[in-house]
């Protein structure tokens, strides 16, 4: 598409069963009751001048530009705050209105720089548009009087500037910060002529304020007062392409706004059904990694990991790799080969990687990063409901009355969805937080959780079972729902189990450390407070009882009848952009796409016939088992697309030992990541801006990813996998990812109705999309569970084997921070480091004082597995006895400390519970220094002089 602004109807859409008919400028218009005159006019093609109004924000009525005349009404009311009435006759253009608007606009312009020729807005300015719209031709007042010119520009934010002299104090930015983002960092400071937009407290600038740099204010600004630095630098974009963000599992839709091949800015797309026009600091601004100098653009090989890399042609890299693969297969058999699909790549790319491993390599040793994040979700929900995904769309939260949030920190991990959640909470929904840390949602501006259950890490199952105990023993179960929708006998067994006194909050308080009365109150609220919706994250899954916790959550939803309609449900907040999709695409070693087990011979035969190969009917190895087998010598080669297991997976020493033991490690990535230290083949990858395909977000929404520029490395990732497949003897001939999507649809019952053409037409689709659900499935299990009757699973609390003791008396739990993403490979290569340039250790004041540690002190963090050092942040956000850190920086390598304990059903690592000791330190440990030196050596690239 070309470059034009999205249509702006001035005020938000109103939904109503009642319709109102009125006349605007002689045209009869029918709109839902409650719609404003401004919006009604816009919907019938009119355009009432406006400045303070925009359809993403509630009407404000301050600029006085949108005045209209209404027959029979006195004065000239503001159309943005006037609701339509039946039979109303509105005039939007009259000589009187023209005069009034000109007068208003003249006053605005009298205190605004007339530097349109050099202004970065370059005509993309609503103020300029409206001045033209009202026919303003001159300004009588001049600049001799007091004005706001020449004020200092606030350039503190790395991504946008604030120029106060261009500000018209329309408050759109202030309202966007509150209404859209829910941070309330901005305000109008002063009164009357002294009014000015202010970030935070007096003396703050944008960077030092509470601003989270989501960009909502910049997007709302009608002038260039708030403007992206990239637009200031490169100028106004010339074209825009709608695509999907490649950061978290929310899956925001953006307009990639381009000037030639230069990406100028990413702007959230109002029609995006996951984000509804909102964004966060990562998706909106942190795309600079795509052209970062560290990016590798040529294939490289080396004979051993102690040698420098040699840049080679694609042909040489592929033939070298293919020869190695064939040789290993011949010597050790197909089961010595495997690979890892990427949750950052598209569905089509992921599908091809697992096809290459199953059909080309000949083994089922394929896994994906979901192994270390949400594999328990897949297992647990398939047991309870019959499908491995969340039950709702994101919009559903706006119908929730009680939100139970467990083991998730959406304001950091899923910020755009967190803003929707906060909006609903401000409307009056109640919040229960179950988390060892006092996350922001427990208490932040206009948000105050009804109950916070600061449980001891590792006791999720105990807490959830005690909530179930209260619901069942206090007679709060929804028996009618259970009898109709669930297996009654199984329910009775489960109810007997949870009713046992040993599952009461009072009995378990010693284990969970949560006051019994708080548990009882939370249980009553969830069971009786109206629509109850559960949202959860990795604080649920990354435990030795991750799968049990997911099933315990499903039990709670079923016992209270909170499933199968809007406002309720079980909602896993998936981590990476396409982790749902990578699971859907058959990335797990035991199943084919659509979650069908390999032992199902009919399914297996369907794939065999389509692919022209025979498939191994036995399950393959999971990632941790691959590493074990590598150490044992039975697993010799791995192809890793878009994952950095050395940094992201637990017990770094063991991961390194596994990788070092292999004969061939192929890393296919944007950067020489930590895993590449152990690779002998590097295939340069492409960014999400450089390819077509689809991502599937946490609400099962399949969304198009569109190429906005040519791949700097020469090929999209799906092409590289195809070249590798053909180099080992496959005969693949895909010319576009749409053909791969057709194959997925052909082989996957939940994708039958999905095609590239349909996604182009409809924007997105939520699976299942098939004969039974031709338009997709925003809400699942509406008339019945996928598996038939909902299954109550008895979930006994089993303490983790990881125990504290005299040597390791503290519990470490790990997580994420807003500005960084996963291993930080992308975000560390952007200006986001200004907010988080190193991993730090959060520690309670009592624990810090006992160890002689102060804010900023270096500390040694040691577990039974390993140790590292990092700086301490003293905070009561964590409870005594608990410490917390992130894993975004390889300099820290937090996973050198985490253990190989894992979920009983899926081997998802227990990142959230590690017994540790913290002691004062002088700086980086010997191991860290050795590691950094080794990494530096491993990244050497031998530059060969070109032949004469």
């Amino acid at each position, binding site marked *: 598409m070309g470059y034009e602004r999205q249509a702006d109807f001035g005020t938000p859409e109103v939904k109503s069963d009642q319709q109102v008919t009125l006349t605007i400028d002689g045209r009869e218009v029918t709109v839902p009751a409650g719609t404003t005159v401004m919006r009604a006019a816009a919907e019938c093609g009119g355009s009432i001048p406006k400045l303070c109004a925009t359809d993403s924000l509630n009407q404000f009525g301050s600029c006085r530009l949108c005045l209209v005349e209404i027959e029979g009404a006195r004065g000239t009311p503001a159309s943005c705050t006037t609701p339509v009435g039946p039979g109303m006759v509105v005039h939007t253009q009259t000589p009187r209105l023209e005069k009034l608007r000109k007068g208003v606009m003249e006053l605005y312009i009298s205190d605004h720089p007339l530097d349109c020729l050099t202004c970065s807005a370059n005509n993309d300015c609503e103020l300029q548009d409206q001045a033209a719209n009202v026919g303003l031709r001159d300004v009588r007042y001049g600049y001799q009087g007091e004005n706001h010119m020449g004020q200092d520009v606030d350039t503190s934010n790395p991504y946008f500037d604030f120029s106060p002299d261009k500000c018209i104090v329309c408050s759109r930015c202030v309202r966007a910060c509150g209404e859209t983002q829910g941070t309330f960092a901005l305000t109008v400071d002063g009164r009357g002529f002294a009014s000015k937009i202010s970030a935070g407290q007096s003396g703050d600038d944008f960077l030092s304020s509470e601003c989270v740099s989501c960009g909502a204010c910049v997007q709302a600004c009608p002038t260039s007062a708030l403007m992206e630095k990239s637009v200031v630098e490169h100028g106004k974009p010339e074209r825009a392409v709608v695509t999907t963000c490649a950061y978290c599992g929310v899956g925001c839709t953006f307009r990639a706004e381009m000037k030639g091949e230069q990406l100028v800015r990413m702007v959230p797309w109002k029609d995006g059904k996951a984000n509804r026009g909102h964004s966060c600091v990562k998706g909106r601004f942190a795309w600079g990694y795509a052209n970062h100098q560290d990016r590798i653009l040529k294939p490289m090989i080396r004979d051993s990991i102690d040698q420098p890399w040699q840049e080679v042609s694609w042909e040489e890299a592929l033939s070298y790799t293919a020869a190695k693969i064939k040789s290993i297969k011949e010597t050790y058999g197909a*089961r010595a080969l495997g690979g890892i699909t990427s949750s950052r790549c598209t569905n089509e790319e992921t599908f091809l990687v697992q096809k290459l491993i199953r059909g080309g390599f000949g083994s*089922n*040793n394929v896994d994906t990063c979901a192994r270390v994040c949400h594999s328990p979700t897949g297992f647990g929900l398939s047991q309870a409901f019959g499908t491995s995904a969340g039950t709702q769309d994101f919009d559903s939260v706006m119908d929730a009355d009680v939100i139970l949030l467990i083991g998730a920190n959406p304001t950091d991990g899923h910020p755009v969805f967190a803003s929707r959640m906060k909006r609903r909470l401000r409307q009056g929904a109640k919040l229960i937080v179950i988390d060892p840390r006092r996350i922001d949602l427990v208490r932040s501006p206009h948000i105050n959780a009804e109950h916070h259950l600061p449980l001891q890490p590792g006791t999720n199952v105990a807490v959830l079972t005690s909530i179930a105990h209260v619901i069942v023993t206090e007679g709060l179960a929804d028996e009618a729902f259970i009898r109709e929708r669930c297996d009654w006998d199984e329910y009775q067994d489960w109810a007997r*189990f949870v009713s046992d006194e040993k599952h009461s909050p009072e009995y378990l308080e010693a284990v969970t450390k949560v006051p019994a009365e708080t548990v009882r109150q939370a249980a009553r609220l969830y069971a009786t407070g109206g629509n109850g919706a559960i949202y959860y994250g990795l604080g649920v899954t990354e435990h*030795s*009882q991750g*799968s*049990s916790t997911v099933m315990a959550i499903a039990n709670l939803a079923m016992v209270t009848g909170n499933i199968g309609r809007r406002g309720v449900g079980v909602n896993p907040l998936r981590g990476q952009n396409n982790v749902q999709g990578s699971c859907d695409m058959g990335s797990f*070693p*035991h199943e084919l796409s659509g979650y069908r*087990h390999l*032992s199902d011979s009919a399914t297996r035969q369907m794939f065999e016939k389509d692919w022209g190969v025979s498939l191994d009917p*036995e*399950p*393959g*190895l*999971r990632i941790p*088992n691959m590493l*074990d*087998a590598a*150490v*044992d010598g*039975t697993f010799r080669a791995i192809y890793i697309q878009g994952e950095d297991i050395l940094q992201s997976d637990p017990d770094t020493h063991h991961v390194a030992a596994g990788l070092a033991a292999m004969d061939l490690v192929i890393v296919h990535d944007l950067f020489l990541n930590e895993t590449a230290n152990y690779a002998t083949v590097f295939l340069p990858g492409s960014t999400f801006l450089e390819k077509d395909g689809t991502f599937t977000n946490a609400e099962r929404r399949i969304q198009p990813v569109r190429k906005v520029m040519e791949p700097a490395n020469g090929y999209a990732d799906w092409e590289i996998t195809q070249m590798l497949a053909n180099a080992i003897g496959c005969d693949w001939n895909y010319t576009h990812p749409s053909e791969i999507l057709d194959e997925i649809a052909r082989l996957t019952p939940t994708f039958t109705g999905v095609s590239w053409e349909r996604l182009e037409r409809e924007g997105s689709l939520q699976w299942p999309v098939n004969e039974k659900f031709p338009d997709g499935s925003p809400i699942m299990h509406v008339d019945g569970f996928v598996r038939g009757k909902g299954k109550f699973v*008895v*979930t*006994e609390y*089993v303490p983790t*084997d990881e125990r504290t003791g005299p040597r390791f008396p503290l519990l470490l739990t790990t997580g994420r921070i807003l500005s960084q993403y996963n291993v930080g490979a992308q975000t560390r290569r952007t200006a986001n480091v200004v907010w988080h340039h190193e991993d730090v250790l959060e520690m309670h004041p009592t624990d810090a004082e006992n160890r002689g540690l102060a804010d900023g002190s270096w500390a040694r963090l040691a577990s039974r597995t390993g140790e590292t050092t990092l700086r301490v942040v003293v905070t009561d956000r964590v409870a005594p006895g608990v410490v917390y850190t992130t894993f975004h920086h390889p300099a820290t390598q937090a996973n050198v400390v985490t253990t*190989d304990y894992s979920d*009983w*059903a*899926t*081997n998802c690592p227990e990142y959230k519970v590690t017994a540790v000791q913290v002691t004062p330190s002088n700086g980086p440990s010997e191991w860290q220094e050795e590691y950094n030196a080794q990494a530096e050596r491993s990244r050497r690239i031998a530059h060969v002089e070109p032949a004469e």
Partner: protein
Amino acid sequence: MSSTQEKLRRMADQIATNLQARGHEEAVAATAEHIWKFWDPRMKAGIFADDLSVLTPIAREAIEKLKADAQQSAA
């Protein structure tokens, strides 16, 4: 004994412990099914060849059942 062998034992016992609330008979069947569905052949072979007496009763019976099934299919 390799560390992998130790891990296999731990995994089998962990599965059994988490399923034991279903009652002994069902837990044995569920443990066996879980291992059959999710373990790679070399992992199964590893635990089959191990000293099963060190396992918890549910895990041990589950592995014995799987071994018997495997022998039956091979015959």
